């Protein structure tokens, strides 16, 4: 099942990337990022089966960081929404040359 798992993780990752490219809603872009992280987790778990338990340990760290990232990221989105009344990323372009 190794090859199949790896292929699946690649597909999920590609879908996540396409989603980030396709959407403008900041929250949905965020979800696509979570999808990519999960694709990576799947990859790690699949490989850890034959390479050692460290892969699963690493997945735990990824999950933790993802949780932290989601909390801060969503807080930022709330903060931005209060200012612009929108979550469309085209509206936030203050930080440029």
């Amino acid at each position, binding site marked *: 099942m190794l090859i199949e798992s790896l292929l699946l993780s690649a597909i999920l990752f590609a879908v996540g990337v396409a989603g*980030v*490219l396709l959407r*403008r809603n900041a929250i949905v*872009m965020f979800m696509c990022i979570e999808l990519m992280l999960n694709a990576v987790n799947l990859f790690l778990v699949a490989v850890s089966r034959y390479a050692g338990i460290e892969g699963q340990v690493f997945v735990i760290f990824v999950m933790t960081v993802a949780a932290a990232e989601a909390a801060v990221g969503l807080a930022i989105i709330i903060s931005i929404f209060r200012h612009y009344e929108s979550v469309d*990323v*085209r509206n*936030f372009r203050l*930080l*440029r*040359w």
Partner: protein
Amino acid sequence: MVGVPVLDSMLALVQEATTHERAYVPFLPSWMILLPFIGFVINGAVGYLAPDRRKLVSAVGPGVLGLSFLVAAVNLVLLIAAHDAEPVIRSYWTWMEVGQLRIEAALQLDQLSVMMALVVTCVSFIIHIYSIGYMGEDPGYARYFSFLNLFVFFMLVLVLAANFPLMFVGWEGVGLCSYLLIGFWFTEPAKADAGQKAFIVNRIGDFGFLAAMFALFAYLGTLDFQAVFAIAPRGFEYGGAAVTLITLFLFLGCTGKSAQIPLYVWLPDAMHGPTPVSALIHAATMVTAGVYLVARTGVLFALAPLSMTVVAVVGAVTALFAATIAVQQFDIKRVIAYSTISQLGYMFLAVGVGAYTAGIFHLATHAFFKALLFLASGAVIHAMHHALEHAGEEAGEDVTQDMRNMGGLKAYLPTSFRTAWIGALALAGVFPLAGFFSKDEIIWSAGARGQTLLWVLAVLTALLTAGYITRWLVMVFHGASRVGEGARRYLRAAPSVMLVALVLLAVGSVVSGWVNVPEALPLLPEFTWLHQFLHPSFEAAEHVLVEHMGEPAHVAPLGGGEGTWAVLSTTAAILVVIFTFMALRGKRYLSAREAAEPTGLWRLLYRKWYVDELYDLVIVKPFKALCMVSWRVIDQGLIDGALVDGVAYTTRFGGWVVSRFQTGYVGTYVLIIVIGILIILGAVAL
């Protein structure tokens, strides 16, 4: 004496010390060096915190030197008591240790170094005393004494060091103090410039010292004196390129420090410093460091006959060359400055022909009579300055030091006058004064070792020396007074501390020659004490010399023994003195303001053979042009323009280009990231 038990026991101690062979145990050697340093610290602190505490400075400055002199004297006595003692190395701590290189902060106490230390501390002590009077009214009194103490400290480090790097510390240190003291009145540009000139010219010489040190380490793997001299005769091929190169580099250092051709030009300008400084640093001690170095490394020089010849030739030529210039100078100190260069030439001639003892002997006697001459002229300048200032006339250096403005001073400055005569006769080599014994021995050594040409040069120089120093005496002390009427009333003898110093040095100039009376002199007992005393220090070098060149002869190039020539030379010197005195006594000199520049050959001598101008044309001007090119083209154009500004402009342009990608749209960033990942992954996959 019987019945006074204390005296009896002391006498017994002295007798035991002098009769029994005993090993030499140095007496507080570190304190000899530390005392002047303590003086430097105290005087420096006083100069910084309370410059008006002159009494404290007057006590500390000469006091530490007096104590240091006593320590040196005790050591000398101990060394004499221990006949032919081996050198004692006192190591205090490891200065640096890198790989094979291990340098100790160590002192070497042997006959040569202790002898030198004694001369240095003795003359320094006397000159410190003199300075109390000479510098008494100077606002920088404490600063002056702190520098002078520091100088003695470094000079003793130089003399007592047990390895080349430590000696180099002293070597550089005395150069630094020389710079500080030449430019002591640094507010006048000419004096500050003179200090810089001395420093820069010395740097050229120091390069030679450093190069020689590196080469020595590369060849022998050690820099300790004892080790180097022990290994050298086996480690170097006799007359080989390596040892010749090393010794020539060492000698380059000597020409810088000891003012020999071609690096002598700084010494006459060094006369801008206070006169006691000229006497101490630029006549008696520091400038003799080169002679000491050649004598100290005698083994190396003995292994390189070519270098020996170079040393001797440079010494003899410098002696004659400087003597000719001295004939036509009018600055009271400049005459003596050129005389110093000339006498240093003698010393190099001596060590260059292998007569190390003669060189060190002349070094010691010269220290006394040359310091005496300088201090006497200092007394004259002091009086002139004082008189002109009180008369409300111009009292600048060019007025107070020009001999054309003096004349007939013997009535006003009797002590200076008498002691100056003693010093002058000693310099001229008149029996029985110090210069007679030492100079005669050098001339004899040059002849006896077959250097006929150098011998002729040395004899000529001796005659010129008698001539110019008599001219100096006549112009300063004899004849009609050319001091202005108004100023003449204010001419006063110097303070008594200065006169005490003059008398002490005069005594030294008389007696210091008697430590080494050659056997060949008629009517005199043989007393070659110095020879025997210094013998252990030069044994190794003389052994190499004799092995390769044979024993020195006992006849001069023109026949006759040492005694004959000694009598002849002192007679000739006396004749020259009398002749010059008679010829110049009645001569009328115009005062400096009215006098025209001399003509013909005199002008050539007056202009010092145009050497300064030649150096300016050949070295200074091209160097300045090169610096200009480096500055304008290389530094400002290439480095500043192309490199520094170029990097800045490139970075700015690059930043501008990259900033175009910062659109502020998240979509753009995502796209760029994805494309980047695709590129990287593509590279990995392929």
